[in-house]
């Protein structure tokens, strides 16, 4: 009787261990493969009659935005930060706003970066620019400070423009502001009547 018990005491753990090994061998490997991110790049393009207002370092009309978001078709969203090395847009001061000179020469050929970031591949539906606000003045020739009449206007801009993010590729989105329409000239002021739109989506 005692021998039988001893046999059981030794055999049962071995059997259990053997079963576990067999079970372990039978498990298939999980698929851990994940796609590489794509990159979205948002740039500003300014349309303006250069016979009236030129792209010059002496001319300035700022546009300040708080945050830029990309919305995926499944409802997920991601912030588009300043560049690929930035982790977040919020600065140590707590401010997350960025200002751009729409009369920067780079805005003439759509090369003024509003933001650039890695995004998961997928179908995206819209770009959301939070709290877009014009500057208080248009500076012309470095000395003419032309007040903006409704400079307190602050808009949340939704651009419903489908675009794709492809693994390892750039998606270049160009946001255009038409200053010929947006800045209505008064006697000694500009009335700001903003006209923004996404003019192109290009894939590299």
């Amino acid at each position, binding site marked *: 009787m005692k021998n039988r018990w001893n046999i059981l005491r030794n055999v049962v753990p071995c059997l259990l261990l053997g079963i576990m090994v067999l079970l372990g061998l039978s498990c298939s490997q999980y698929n851990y493969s994940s796609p590489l991110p794509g990159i979205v790049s948002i740039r500003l393009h300014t349309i303006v009659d250069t016979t009236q207002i030129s792209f010059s370092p002496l001319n300035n009309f700022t546009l300040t935005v708080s945050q830029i978001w990309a919305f995926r078709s499944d409802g997920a969203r991601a912030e588009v930060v300043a560049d690929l090395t930035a982790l977040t847009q919020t600065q140590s001061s707590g401010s997350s706003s960025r200002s751009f000179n729409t009369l920067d020469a780079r805005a003439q050929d759509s090369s003024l970066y509003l933001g650039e970031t890695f995004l998961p591949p997928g179908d995206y539906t819209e770009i959301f620019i939070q709290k877009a606000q014009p500057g208080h003045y248009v500076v012309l020739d470095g*000395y003419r400070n032309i007040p903006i009449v409704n400079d307190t206007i602050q808009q949340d801009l939704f651009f419903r423009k489908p675009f794709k993010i492809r693994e390892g590729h750039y998606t270049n989105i160009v946001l255009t502001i038409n200053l010929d329409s947006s800045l209505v000239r008064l006697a000694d002021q500009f009335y700001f009547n903003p006209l923004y739109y996404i003019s192109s989506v290009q894939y590299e």
Partner: protein
Amino acid sequence: MSKSLLFSWVVIGIAVIFIPLSWNCKGSGVQYKNTPPFTVLANVPPPDTVILTSNPRLSLSWIGNDPDGYVIAFRYRWSYRLNSSSPTLEKPWSTLLNLLNVIGAGVNKNLKFALMTDAPVPNLPEVYRYFAYLPNGLLSDSATNALRVGDSLIIAGAHVWASNPITNPFPVHTAPTSGTFIFDSQDSLNPHTFEVEAVDNLAAVGLPAKVSFETPRVTAPQTEIDEFPTDTVMVLNDPTVTFQGARITFHGIDPNSRTLDYQWVVDKDQWPQNNIPWSAFSSQTYAYVTAKDLPDPLGHKHTFYVRARNEFGVIDTLGVFIRQVFDANNTPIPGQFDTIRANIDFYTLYPPFQLPGYVPRALLINLSVGFPDATIPRPSQPMLTDYYMQMMHNIGMDGKYDVFNLTVDPAGNESFPGRGTLGQYNLIVLTGDAIDYGARPADAKNYNYVRKAQVCITDVIKQKLTDYCNVGGKMIISAWALPWRNNMGVDTAGVGSEGDGMSYICHMQDLVADPPTINLIQPARTAFLGATGQNGYPDVVFDSTKADTALWGKSLQMVYTGRPYGFGEILYRYVSDSTNFHFQFNPGDFSPVPIVCATRYLGVTYKVVYFGFPLYYIQVPGATTQPSATEVLRKAFSDLN
């Protein structure tokens, strides 16, 4: 278990099964009838009593209830008659949904309002469901905003709108159980019976609650004109960024009315009498009259009519009333009355230079009266006029301009052209190049002159020039000491306002005289040696051959500098002698010290080129034309044309 106990359990089981099965609801009972709702008017006199109100406006409140359901709406109407011999008529029913706590769509967005509908009683929506459905019983913002401007919504198939949106202040309902009404009161005494009844959830209507009363006839408001143009106004067909129209202000008087609105028309007798274009009623107490409002846009004399309407809908058709005159102690003076009219005459001019087919023509105005004993440094008026005429000849303006030399009568009144004259020209060359610097004015109190030799731009002249600009005029100004405080100067109206001619017309601000008024190093009194041209203008230098060197040294004084205002552009930067380094132009460095002495404003409507130095005293180095300042004037003409 005994047999008897088993039997008992069997019997109980059979009973439990069969008794409920044998039960049924069939019977011969009668369903209760719906009890109609009832309505009670609050705080009204006993029935069969008629009261006389003090005015046609009356606020009434009521309540309603339904013993076997709930009230979904109230509807009301009232009776009226046109006159004592007219039969009694009744207004159509108005229906209020019994929906509480709707805020924000009324005249005041913070006030509550009620929802009205034109749905017939059987189709009234059971609004209690919506009361529960809407968050906190309120309408969403977008729906509220739509209601606020008078739009309607569809609720459960019913056409619904706000009781008193912005466009329709009466009747006022802040709840479905109250209202402020204005009752028709054409006759001297106007009997009314107001009745209101509730509608329950089965569309049953109860007996109406009634109240009878009489309202007095409403007196018309009175209308009075406050401000109107006392001088000829230049008008265009449409407003521009610098032209709104001839402004006329007015107000109404009606102690019985909480609100007044107005409509106006110009020259109502000249329009077809069956189609007088009165403006829409508005609460604005001012009007801007443009040429479009005139039956004859090119006519000169016009009459403006305005009439007020009170909240009872009564319009001031009389247009005149008598007002007691009071003395200094506010005591009525017996027998003395003023006649107050709601119409006023005013004068307009449609500038000919804005009419189709106009042939461009310029006007040269010489503000300088000059010196009796003329010398080259102290020229006479003819010398200055000849100088400019020579330049106009060089530019090719012969036969295309007129000359106006200012004169001053013994009483000191100057003869500046009126608006009727200015409007004949699409370009004005205004020059005031002579001052007697170095000698005090003969009469220091006589500020009508700049140093004896130049007529000042008085407020009257400034307003004429401003009006001319506002309707699209073009000006070239060359003047010595124009910004002097008693000349066009800086006005207390503020930079950029019409009263401040230097910024509004010339587009110069922050003007600094020589010696400067700012707390900087005092420059020598001999300062202006010339100016560096920009935007295509040639450099200029002071013509030392015209200097009174004994008093002036070798340069000009009282040449004011500043910086451009608004869209004004820099044309010239000041060049001073070496002792005035802080007036020097330092290329590439924006100095905080204003050093600009000439500007150009090419605006949406008007255009001005302003030279803060007198062209008479400058030369353009290298220019072969004589006078060489022609090149400066030529460029100005080029900019404006």
